[in-house]
């Protein structure tokens, strides 16, 4: 009797273990399927990769380690503006990047524009002049001489 009970116990344990294993594998396959679809549907969802490509040419125009002001037509009180700023901050690192502060303006600034517009005027309003336009809405600004 005890041997038969032991076999039942052993069989039950392994049945349960194998059921868990099967469910886990199915869950993993399900996850893979969803992850693949999501990856295909939403490449670079925050634009961080494209920001790296867009801002790469800017480094050639900027002094090493210069802190940068940030000028954009996307305001920072909106999600698109925040996303664009953080992606630009990442792409421009190790330069420190912060929105232009008129009280303590940086010598150099970077423009990140998403919409068509008068980019030099955007910089001029903050006391900057265009030094270079590297394309795709990215401009390099420098403080205008007084």
């Amino acid at each position, binding site marked *: 009797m005890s041997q038969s009970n032991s076999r039942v116990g052993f069989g039950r344990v392994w049945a349960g*273990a194998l059921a868990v294993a099967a469910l886990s594998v199915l*869950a993993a396959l399900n996850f893979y399927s969803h992850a693949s679809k999501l990856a295909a549907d939403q490449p670079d969802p925050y634009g961080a990769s494209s920001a790296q490509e867009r801002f790469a040419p800017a480094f050639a125009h900027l002094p090493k380690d210069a802190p940068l002001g940030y000028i954009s037509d996307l305001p920072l009180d909106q999600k698109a503006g925040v996303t664009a700023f*953080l992606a630009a901050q990442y792409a421009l690192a190790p330069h420190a990047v*912060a929105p232009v502060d008129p009280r303590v303006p940086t010598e150099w600034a970077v423009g990140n524009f998403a919409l068509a517009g008068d980019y030099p005027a955007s910089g001029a309003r903050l006391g900057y002049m265009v030094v270079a336009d590297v394309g795709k809405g990215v401009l390099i600004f420098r403080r205008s001489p007084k």
Partner: protein
Amino acid sequence: MIATIGTLLPAIVLGWLIVRLFGDEGNRTWLTWVFQISLGAGVGLGLTSCVYFAMLLAGVASRAALFAVELIAIAALAMLLRKQRTVADEVAPPQSSSWIWALRIAAGVGVVCISLSFSESTATNPNGEWDAFSIWNVRAKYLAGGSPAWRNAFGGNLAAGMTGAAHPGYPLLLSASIARVWTLTGAPFDSTTSDAAPAAISLLFALAAYGLLAGALASAVGEMFGWLALLVLIATEAFATQAASQYADLPLAFFILATIAVAAAAERAGWPPGLLALTGLVAGLAAFTKNEGLPFLLLTAIVILWRAPKSKRMIAVGWLLLGAVPGVIATLAVKMLAQGTEAVFPKSAAQALHQIVDPSRWMQILGSFTRHFGELGVWWAHPLLLIVVLAVVFGVVSKDDARSRVWLALPVAGLLAADFALYLVTTAELSWHLSTSNGRVILQVWPAMIFVAFLMLRRPPEPEEPELAGVLARKPPGPKAKRAKGSARE
């Protein structure tokens, strides 16, 4: 990618040597190797991160200096290990049913699926999710930028001071680990920086967490439970997602699991100094990973102080705190260098009290925790459901055994309580704070919770009939070598 892997190998080797030196329990099966290598990978990444950070602050973090320091450390540890080494009895693993192969294969398939998911996600989104490029990886770029750029990682105007992105004083284990790889590979900053480092480190921590859970449980309660725990973690889709996110929550989950697993091993072995120091080391590295790590370290020290035998209490905690020194010093350095304060903390006690006594906040937070536990996986293979199934099938241990093991859950429970308290007093909008972090807070402790849950299950009955068992011939025991003098082990 090859260069990146090349720079990760010294870190893994270094960590593995440390684990062998301080945490080798002797009898070794192939699952012990899995445990030691997995633990060593995380320890190595964490320690080399601390060393890199220290060298950066000292102004000597050049590629040549880093290589030299790490190679010298590896050589020194290898020599120490060789001196100290006992010839461990090579034992055949305990008898297992041949059905164990089904669990091994299932676990292998699961890990392959997760790795493939990671690969596809990273291929189309190499910079990770929001916090990756706005917090962790951007700081890594600052650190790798040399002097004076590295100070930007602590700047008060980082991320324009925005709540949720600024986080001055955030611990930097992950960022420094990435920066170390970039420094060693010479990743340039005037063109697109290599995206491989953050992704590779994230994947390594994920795989190490899987391996650590399986190996630690196999060492503690047998191979079958090791594989089953791994399968429960594989079924936790929310955890698998984190690998491609490149956040610091997954490394923190690794270090929290490591702390609990090594503490359990320390108790099994009678609280030897080596294992206690190793417990402290991984707990200290948790502190250098995210802010949650510091209260976790304190909780661990308190629990060890309570749990260790009376005659060994102060010594046990002493060894633990000694082991925690690298992580704690690095964390304190970050806190001292940071400019500004964490935006979500209340500015006054009155403000905090006003929020604590609001019952709607309690309900909202409880509801969020419940919902996020529910979202750990798909309903039909939910990890909690799988654990319940196993509890029904195996049964739970006796009350006495449960009481002797429940202490391992205390640091984890304490950390969750601390997280709850933070949500009560946060000055950020509560819905936003919960929706953006609650799920990850649970994932930080989830592997450790699985570990403790499996310790509460009754060990499976051994097979009796020869035809049901994979009988393994036991090798004759090898000669026992004398212990070397000055060993870290008693």
